[in-house]
Structure formats: structure tokens, C-alpha cells
């Protein structure tokens, strides 16, 4: 089954072979937790530019997506938090790239909406702030603003374990935005620490059904960086 599955690719470069300049890319992870390390490294070697990137942090502390940010491959970024990412904050303040800051819950819901076929929704989050400027306001129990779905051409995500159909299992808090992005992108590329045969992940333990996954490969050389290591008594 592993070799026969059309979803299984050799590596990140093979899975990303048809990404083009100007495309929209979603990238999973919270800070550096759960990021698609192999895909990001492969993107540093692919000749693309003017990408629109949808990612909560666009990397952090010089790592993750910062690798392609400093190669000037990103034209526009959607994210919720740039603290801890001086490379992005600098480009945002100097307007070198366009950044749309989105409240994190609105960010995840806009991505979820795309995957669910919802075109737009009203939410109180951001009402009365800069985020609401130019947006439709409607009174429900309280004033709400209209937010639209966020789609992508590609999503690059990482799971701890995946089978050859693309069924995924995520470890601890590494799940974050990844299942939502997988549902919102036309082509979802998944890298896994353990690629297994179908049936090895019990059906009731599957966090994301493989229906949403177009490509999967066995990743390698994971760093799994910790940003702030704090242990008991420290």
C-alpha cells in the first residue's frame, strides 16, 4: 500500500515541485511548535517569489518561515502575532512587506470557514478597533464585524504520524492550525515523523481524515526547537 499510494512522495522537494511565484501558502505551527521543517527548508532552495503566506507567526527568532522571509520570497503575510519575530516586525514597520494582522481566533476561524465552505461570518472580535476599519458592522446581541474565509493554493503542515492515505495524528499542542489549513488549501502537503501503513493509526484516533491530504512524505532531521525552555523550579 505504501508504495502504491499516489499520495506518497519522496521528500519535500518532490512534494513542492509545482509551487509557483504569486501563490498563496498556508503554513502550520504555533511559533516553532509543529512547523513543517522539511518543507520550509525546501522552499529556501526553490526559486519562487511574491508568495502570500498565511501563518500565525511567520516563524520566530530567525527560524521557521523567517528563512524565506529574509530571502524576500514573501510579498504579503497574514498572521496574528509578530512578537518574538524581529525580522518580521522590522519589515512590517518599514512596510517592506504587506502584513495583515488578524486576531488569532478570527484567523483560525477564517481558515476553518474556507475548509467548511463558509464564505464569511460575523464576530464581535475586533469591533471598535483598527481591525474593524472598512468592514461591514451588524448588530446582533452586540455589534459584530464581517470576516471572510481565507483560502490557499498550498498548505504545508507537519504531523507526528500519518498513514499512506494521509490520515494524521498530531502530538500534544503541535496540532494547532494544521488540520484547519489542510481543509482550506487546494493542495495539502504533510510531512510526518512516522509514515505508517493504513490501519496502523486506529480509526477512532485519527485527528484529520486523509481526505484533506493530497501529498505526504516521511520527513527527516527534525530539530523540534524549543523557544523557551522552562523546567520545574527554574
Amino acid at each position, binding site marked *: 500500500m505504501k508504495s502504491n499510494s499516489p499520495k506518497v512522495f519522496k521528500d519535500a522537494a518532490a512534494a513542492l515541485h509545482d509551487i509557483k511565484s504569486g501563490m498563496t501558502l498556508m503554513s502550520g505551527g*504555533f511559533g516553532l511548535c509543529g512547523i513543517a521543517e522539511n518543507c520550509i527548508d525546501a522552499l529556501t532552495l526553490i526559486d519562487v517569489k511574491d508568495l502570500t503566506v498565511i501563518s500565525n507567526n511567520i516563524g520566530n527568532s530567525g527560524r521557521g518561515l523567517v528563512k524565506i522571509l529574509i530571502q524576500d520570497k514573501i510579498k504579503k503575510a497574514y498572521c496574528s502575532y509578530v512578537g518574538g519575530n524581529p525580522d518580521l516586525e522590522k519589515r512590517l514597520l518599514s512596510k517592506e512587506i504587506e502584513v495583515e494582522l488578524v486576531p488569532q*481566533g478570527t484567523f483560525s476561524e477564517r481558515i476553518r470557514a474556507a475548509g467548511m465552505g463558509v464564505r464569511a461570518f460575523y464576530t464581535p472580535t475586533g469591533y471598535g478597533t483598527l481591525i474593524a476599519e472598512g468592514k461591514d458592522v451588524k448588530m446582533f446581541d452586540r455589534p459584530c464585524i464581517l470576516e471572510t474565509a481565507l483560502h490557499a493554493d498550498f498548505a504545508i503542515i507537519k504531523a507526528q504520524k500519518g498513514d499512506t492515505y494521509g490520515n494524521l495524528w498530531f502530538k500534544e499542542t503541535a496540532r494547532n*492550525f*494544521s488540520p484547519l489549513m489542510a481543509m482550506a488549501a487546494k493542495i495539502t502537503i504533510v510531512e510526518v515523523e512516522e509514515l505508517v501503513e493504513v490501519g496502523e493509526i486506529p480509526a477512532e484516533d485519527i485527528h484529520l481524515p486523509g481526505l484533506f491530504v493530497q501529498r505526504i512524505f516521511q520527513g527527516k532531521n527534525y530539530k523540534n526547537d524549543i*523557544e523557551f525552555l522552562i523546567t520545574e523550579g527554574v
Partner: protein
Amino acid sequence: MSWTNEQMADEVITFFKPYSSVNLGIGMPTVIAERMPADLNVMIHSENGVLGVSGRPKKDSVSPTLINAGKETVQIGPAASFFDSAMSFGMIRGGHIDYCVLGGMEVDVERGLANWMVPGKKITGMGGAMDLVNGSKQVIIMMNHFSKDGTAKLLKKCVLPLTGKEVVDIVVTEMGVFKPTGSSFKALKLAPGVSLGDLKMDSSLLSN
């Protein structure tokens, strides 16, 4: 004598009911997790996808995939669960989280909060703060009373861009506990030895 961060955390904790849920913001509020009495049975939510955070891991049980929203390593307690960001923010936006405790740059009498950018100078982004202030049942701000230039951060009207309008319920600073009423701050409690004059706030902004 103003309160220490730990004493401020203890003041915040007095608002928590047993078996309730709380989201703790990045920065100063994280100390609450370390001060929380175990027998209060409060579930700590972290918006990156975990309910039931409980202290720090031992050196030999650190996991790079078990972090809080501040990207710090944590551990989980009994009854904990993991989930994706949509469910995590569904907990917040759907009104299922009892309290959020956030840091602040400015709070005003109209219950406005500013804590995500200083135009032209600093932008951290709002992260989950705009969702938290609109979705949590009660919004508690834990912050220093004075800015670096020595002026009070409790204002008639926020100058910085808002995180939320008419959202703040309680403000805890090293000087006391305050409730914005719409027209003033009601001083619910002052730290020992602190007088209203020490707050450096116009008397029209204070009420009893």
C-alpha cells in the same frame, strides 16, 4: 507598600470560583499559574490548544510539542486535553471560558483596553487578545500601574489603538484592584499603605 507580582497574582486568584476555567496571557499573568492553589481546581487554558496546563515539566520530561501560548514548555495535569486552534478559540469566542487575565498598556474608564501596538514604534500583534476580551465571561487586566515615564496607565480614554472596546471588568496593579465603571475607576482595594494620592490619577477618574 505596593504589591509584588506574586501578591498581584494572589489578588487575581481571589476572583476565581472553584472548578472554573481561565486563560492566562503572555507576560505578567503567567505567574498566576505558579500561584494557583491546587484545591481550587481551576482549569488553565492556553489558546495554542491545551486545557489543563499544570506547572512546569521536570528536566527529563520536557516535550518540545507541549508548550503554552508564550511558547514556554509546560506540563499538563489530570483531565487535560489537546485540540486544534479552531476548537481552542471556540472555547474562547463561544463564551465557554470563565476568565481571561491579560497584560495591558492602557485601560480606560469606559472599559477599553490597549495592549497590542504603539503606532510607528512597536507592534507585537494582538495574538488571541481581541478574541479573549470579547469572548471570556470576565476580563481581568494585570499590569503595572505606571508606564516607564511614571504616568498612570489607567486613563479617561486610551490613547493607543484598542484591543477591545467596553470589555474590561477588573484591573489589578501593584497599587490596588480597580473596576472601571464607565465614568471612573472604582478602587475596590488598595495595597497596604497606598493612598489614592499615590495612584497619580486625576481625582475625577476615581470613585469609592
